[in-house]
């Protein structure tokens, strides 16, 4: 069937809740309203207000009670309404959700999934378009993933909920309406694996979440220039699948990493650091970055100048090829 990414995620939560009655889903406006993006549409009707519920307006409360619920034995799926509104919960994320298992020497496990619609490109007001993945990916104890395809929207949601570790699922909100075929059961790579979405020979382009589609478009456009791009869907930001990236870089010798997040200390920095170390003798050019700038996310009318797009990717590709 053809579904949107939002529908695929909805179906993923639905099927997880159906398969395991210990799965709960909660957050701000996820119940009757079905979430501000309708990702949780009809779930409350189907599973009742004890399993799908609206919380008070308090993000630390959402993550903190998710931890308590997980200690009790539930498998909570919590939503942060937008990327920019997860920050009030930062202490519960970093000091507890990430560290409780380690602190307890493995005795307390927290199978909590946190869904966060993230990224820009929807013309929203401030705080609704951020890419805070660095904050989570740098935090030991969390797993951080982002689906870039409709199938992964379903499969990564299921895998995150099934995982016994806390997983942050960064949902690319500007792709919620992206449509594709979804055949169940979906078989995809494990949660922590990167996937080559399009093989190529000249330059590897690494992207995830909202930028995967942009990278694929760049690869199409590059063809016209006579460049063959290999597109790798990173999928997981913690852990990062170094081996798949290195293998691709060994084939192409050149790599451009794409993300919306601000450049300095963004995920592309980590990938560049790893690649130049692990594939030093294969580098035909430095690892280049096509990312957001080191400024706050811009107002809606300027976001097209801030966000990486096909042109910015191709500029970096060309720069890499020029070495």
């Amino acid at each position, binding site marked *: 069937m053809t579904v949107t990414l939002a529908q695929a995620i909805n179906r993923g939560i639905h099927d997880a809740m159906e398969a395991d009655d210990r799965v709960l889903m909660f957050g701000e406006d996820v119940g009757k309203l079905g979430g*501000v993006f309708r990702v949780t549409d009809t779930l409350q009707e189907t599973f009742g207000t004890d399993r799908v519920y609206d919380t008070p307006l308090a993000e630390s409360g959402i993550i903190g009670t998710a931890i308590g619920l997980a200690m009790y034995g539930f498998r909570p799926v919590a939503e942060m309404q937008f990327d920019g509104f997860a920050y009030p919960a930062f202490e519960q994320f970093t000091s507890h959700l990430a560290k409780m298992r380690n602190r307890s020497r493995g005795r307390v496990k927290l199978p909590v999934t946190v869904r966060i619609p993230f990224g820009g490109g929807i013309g929203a007001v401030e705080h609704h378009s951020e890419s805070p993945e660095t904050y989570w990916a740098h935090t030991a104890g969390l797993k951080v993933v982002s689906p870039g395809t409709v199938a992964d929207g379903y499969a990564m949601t299921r895998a995150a909920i099934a995982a016994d570790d806390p997983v942050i699922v960064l949902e690319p909100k500007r792709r919620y309406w992206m449509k594709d075929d979804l055949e169940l059961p979906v078989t995809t790579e494990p949660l922590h694996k990167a996937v080559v979405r399009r093989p190529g020979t000249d330059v590897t382009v690494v992207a995830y979440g909202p930028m995967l589609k942009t990278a694929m478009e760049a690869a199409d456009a590059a063809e016209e220039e006579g460049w063959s791009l290999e597109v790798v869907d990173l999928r997981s930001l913690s852990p990062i699948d170094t081996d798949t990236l290195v293998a691709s870089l060994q084939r192409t010798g050149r790599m451009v990493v794409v993300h919306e997040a601000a450049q300095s200390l963004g995920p592309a920095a980590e990938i560049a650091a790893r690649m130049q170390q692990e594939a030093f003798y294969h580098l035909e050019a430095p690892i280049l970055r096509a990312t957001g700038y080191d*400024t706050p996310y811009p*107002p809606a*009318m300027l976001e097209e100048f801030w966000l990486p797009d096909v042109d910015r990717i191709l500029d970096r590709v060309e720069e890499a090829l020029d070495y």
Partner: protein
Amino acid sequence: MGASQPAGDVDPSTLLPPAEPVHLLDPDGTYHEDPDHPVDLDDDQLRMLYRHMVVTRKVDREAINLQRQGQLGVYASLLGQEAAQVGGAFALSEEDWVFPSYREMGAAVTRGVDTGKMLHLFRGTWLSDHDPYEHHFALYSIPIGTQALHAAGFAMGAKFDDNPIVTMAYFGDGATSEGDPHEAMTFAGVFKAPVVFFVQNNQWAISVPLDQQTAAPTLAHKAVGYGMPGHHCDGNDVLATYAVTRKAVDRARSGAGPALIEALTYRMEAHTTSDDPSRYRTRQEEEEAAKTDPIVRYKLFLEKEGLLDADLGEQVEAEAAAEATRMRDEIYEAPHGDPMELFEHVYVDDTGHFERQREVLATELAARDGEVSA
């Protein structure tokens, strides 16, 4: 110590809200005097309250239109909350400061802020575009409840300086669940900061009704936990709102410390233009609420008192229309932002931050220009 005396030195019962919200105007405009809540306004000021509400209603409607016409990305209407916002803000002096959330066009109108400038945030020309220091009206704060701390800190500063100003933080019923307003009230209580926390209880936080937000008897009952008085008023009654706020503002200015006001009102519109309230509340509830329209009630009062005739009524409507036109023009004529400005305001001194990134963007812009001219 052990079983010692309580920490504070005030009688807690004086901090509790009255059993019934303060209410001075009946739906038919009849005014009931309340010696505890005098309305110390002259006729011009009473008319000014009306003017602010009507202008607010008009620019609010116009903003909705602008959104429908694609001129704004989104807009958060305050329909139905005019009395709460105007009545609260009218109790402040010019030197006082307002710290709004994102729905405070009525407070902005009352303070004299350029309504057109207030819309740039929603249009996305820039992240905001009025000068907070001009009318002592801080920037809209989108992360819920966070501005309460700015208001508390500002008021602490005034106190340290022996500067007799008061700050007012507007926030919603939903915001009372967040940690920040809690911490703001804690700080304000300890430092006896001259800040008034003004909660517009419009019954909804997007789709979440008040009884799923808190089990508190009323939001005003939270005040005692911070050692400050909690007030409770009919927020659709502009005189009650004014009088209650005025009392709290005067008290704060006198050095006696902060207060919490809960103004009971109703969000008659959707949460924002992106929202669809039919998914979570009934038409019937909305229709009931519409009957308590704060402007209708106040107009009846003014007419009863002989303060508003047809002429003046028309004059106010005309003023409102003119303001709406000015606002619309500002938005239509707003120049597109300059992309290079993205780097301009991040730091006062950006040495070392943007040299290379400026270059990347400049190159991209040049390439676009090339494509356009080519």
